[in-house]
């Protein structure tokens, strides 16, 4: 199975009827994020930019965090649309959105699974490890077609 393949019209997706709906369902993990102060998965997506300078960190958050969230919402909307239309053809901007959502999904799920350091992977349940692997494989496959 080759989930992504560059063609003359763009990058063709072929996630398949088993995978595409599952990816849409997985996006629920991103929509129920809690307060970063209490939810490790939300905290992973809102890490500080200034260490040891609360005023600068707060100012950066005020100026940039909402824009990051809006960008992520746009990426997720693109992701859902593409998955719903699969098989389809996406342009490079849409492909970049998919790449970012794969990253976001892996970060959030890994945080939910308790992955904080490399050695935590050894403690994952088989299904958890497989899920992260599949998302990583999809992201890597798309990156190879997308190029820099």
């Amino acid at each position, binding site marked *: 199975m080759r989930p992504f393949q560059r063609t003359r019209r763009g990058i063709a997706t072929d996630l398949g009827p088993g995978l595409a709906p599952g990816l849409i369902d997985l996006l629920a993990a991103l929509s129920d994020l809690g307060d970063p102060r209490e939810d490790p998965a939300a905290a992973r997506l809102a890490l500080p930019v200034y260490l040891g300078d609360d005023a600068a960190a707060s100012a950066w958050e005020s100026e940039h965090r909402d824009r990051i969230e*809006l960008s992520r919402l746009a990426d997720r909307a*693109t992701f859902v*649309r593409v998955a719903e239309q699969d098989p389809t053809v996406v342009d490079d901007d849409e492909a970049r959105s998919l*790449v970012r959502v794969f990253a976001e999904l*892996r970060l959030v799920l890994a945080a939910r699974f308790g*992955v904080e350091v490399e050695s935590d992977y050894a403690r994952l349940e088989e299904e958890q490890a497989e899920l992260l692997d599949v998302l990583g494989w999809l*992201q890597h496959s798309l*990156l190879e077609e*997308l190029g820099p």
Partner: protein
Amino acid sequence: MPRLETVTAPVIRPASDEEESVADVWKVVVWNDPVNLISYVIWVLRTLFGYSKEKATRLTMQVHNEGRAIVFDGDRDKAEAACFELHRQGLWATLEQ
């Protein structure tokens, strides 16, 4: 459902030596994490900063092996913009002088 517009990342260029004094230079540090793929971090550094494959790979492996790497420096506005883009891509980046 209305289609939300995606943001296209600009290529952020480091400042030249003549543009600013050392005191004005802010460093952007990317930290290691156990989740993001090495191929993804390389791709982010190439697309965001326009780095060669060799430079992006060297910086990514420095992040992976040493826990962090300075991936960019420039004035505060450019450094903050770089941090914005890196966080948007899911990498953890911090600023320091």
